[in-house]
């Protein structure tokens, strides 16, 4: 006679909070040792110091330029000043960020599946989503560490060179800037994770993500230009730029969201991102905005970027949970 195994009880319990941090630790060590991360973080560090060098060289003229309302915010100037030969750091990041995100994510799932490690990890007592979550958390930790250390380095260097104490407003602006950078990279990371779940080959996923990135940086604007020219009547009275929905469409691409948000945060004199009417401009005093107002201006951009990131991650989550583990 056979009896069911249910008749026996087990006392062995599993500590459920442990595995995810083990996985995060492993993911981070993987990334740090991987060539794609080393190369891209070197490139980013290089451009950072390059633009910092240019900024320091031109700092005295920028600070003494009294026509500029925020000429006294030295640390913001350090991040944004250029002499025209090189774009400032935040513009560099608007196209290096996607590359970083894509390079971290394009082979996240499919390479594990190809190597047969996915099924091995899935056969351990861990929840399936822990794998995806651990990848996301580890990338967040990595990127924020990278951006934070770079900017802290900049602040420290600036303090040594200029001797000007940093203002609380600058700290808040720079911190929000870092948060936006992290979300921007993470948006591209989650997008490439979706592709890495959907495509079996890492190369296909990489090409797909880079293709999408190229579409948003180059073709998106061109296509909207063409479409708006076709739709709007040809008359000097109705120039395409005056249609607010076209403007809105322009600002929908993730790169534009990022650029708008960072520009407003790092340059307090920017008071509007859309076109302004003469009435709005008439009484304006050329003065820099307080941090609260700057944040209010970029709020749509920031929330747009964050929600795009969350939507992408949720999609990745959905696809991954439904994926057949068997190869």
């Amino acid at each position, binding site marked *: 006679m056979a009896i069911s195994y249910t008749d026996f009880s087990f006392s062995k319990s599993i500590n459920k909070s442990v595995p995810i941090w083990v996985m995060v630790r492993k993911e981070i060590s993987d990334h740090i040792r991987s060539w794609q991360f080393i190369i891209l973080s070197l490139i980013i560090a290089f451009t950072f110091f390059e633009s910092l060098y240019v900024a320091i060289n031109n700092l005295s003229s920028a600070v003494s330029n009294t026509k500029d309302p925020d000429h006294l915010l030295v640390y913001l100037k350090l991040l944004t000043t250029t002499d025209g030969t090189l774009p400032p750091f935040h513009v560099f990041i608007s196209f290096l960020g996607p590359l970083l995100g894509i390079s971290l994510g394009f082979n996240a799932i499919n390479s594990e599946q190809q190597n047969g490690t996915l*099924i*091995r990890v899935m*056969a351990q*007592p861990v929840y399936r989503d822990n794998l995806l979550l651990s990848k996301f958390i580890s990338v967040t930790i990595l990127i924020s560490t990278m951006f934070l250390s770079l900017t802290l380095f900049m602040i420290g260097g600036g303090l040594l060179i200029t001797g000007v104490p940093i203002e609380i407003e600058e700290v808040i602006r720079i911190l929000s800037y870092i948060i936006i950078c992290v979300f921007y990279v993470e948006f591209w990371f989650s997008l490439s994770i979706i592709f890495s779940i959907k495509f079996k080959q890492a190369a296909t996923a990489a090409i797909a993500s880079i293709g999408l990135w190229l579409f948003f940086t180059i073709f998106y604007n061109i296509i909207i230009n063409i479409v708006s020219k076709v739709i709007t009547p040809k008359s000097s009275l109705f120039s395409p730029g005056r249609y607010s929905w076209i403007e809105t469409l322009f600002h929908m691409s993730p790169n534009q969201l990022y650029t708008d948000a960072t520009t407003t945060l790092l340059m307090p004199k920017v008071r509007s991102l859309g076109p302004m009417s003469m009435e709005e401009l008439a009484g304006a005093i050329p003065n820099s905005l307080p941090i609260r107002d700057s944040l209010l201006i970029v709020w749509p951009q920031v929330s747009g970027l964050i929600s795009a990131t969350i939507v992408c991650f949720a999609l990745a989550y959905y696809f991954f949970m439904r994926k057949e583990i068997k190869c």
Partner: protein
Amino acid sequence: MKTSIIELKGLTKRYGSIHVVNHLNLNIHKGEIFGLLGPNGAGKTTTILMMLGLIEPTSGIAKVCGHNSISNPIAVKSKVGYMPDNVGFYDHMTGLENLIYIGELNGLSSKESEKEALKLMQVVGLDKYLNSKTATYSRGMKQRLGLADVLIKQPEVIIMDEPTLGIDPSGVKDFLKLIKTLSRKHGLTVLLSSHHLNQVQKICDRVGIFVKGKLLAQGNIEQLSEQLFSQTSHQISITLDEPVKLTQEEELKLLQLAKVEHIHKEGNQILISCNKILTPNIVRFMVEQNYNITSVHQKTYGLEDIYQKYFENQHLNV
């Protein structure tokens, strides 16, 4: 009284209209080595993954160690060690690191895990390659590391999908011996899936023949051949020192001997088919009739024949 550690009841998996696994009922007892035997694409891997809760069955229940694999996969996975058919490791990590990682995923602290991993590397004979990257491991070494990987969670059940795939014959022998010793020593239940009959035959207590999502027969080798060849008869061939000259009368007597079905004469040989093992009776009869017997051969059916028979039938159906 036997304890069932794996219970499958009416387990079914359908992709569209194709039944990959079709109403599978299977009980595997504690401490036995069970071989799941079947050709490629029979649904062995799907069945195994359903036991682990990695694939959701269309209908039916899979219970492992008393836990339902669909509603409580974590509990099942903490007691079951699974070795996939092409076991993969993180190539940039050493064998030891790979093992420690899996240990930690199973709730061991990093120190315990390292201690355990070092011990297991010795058990599977990889202690010389502790610190080489797994990318440099040979297929056989990876298989051994896979076994260590399964053992580090101190499982109650080990499930191996094609464990002998791609290892050389002597490696297979060692590997299976290792599995058998470990199973006996720690009272582990082992489920092997394979299409290599002779290997499975050597170490399995019971086998199940699995074709096109259906379990056609199960039991140990003798039971299987009984189930399978009950309608077909046993064959006995007797060789004499002179050409066979059986008289009509003698032949009749032979046929009357219990259940002899057919007699075939060919030169010095007599081939006798019967549906029971009657060799002693026949030999006695022949000796009484003053025939000089030089050899008697009773044909027994091995797993090879069983396998062949099932798969031939299967092909005929196609």
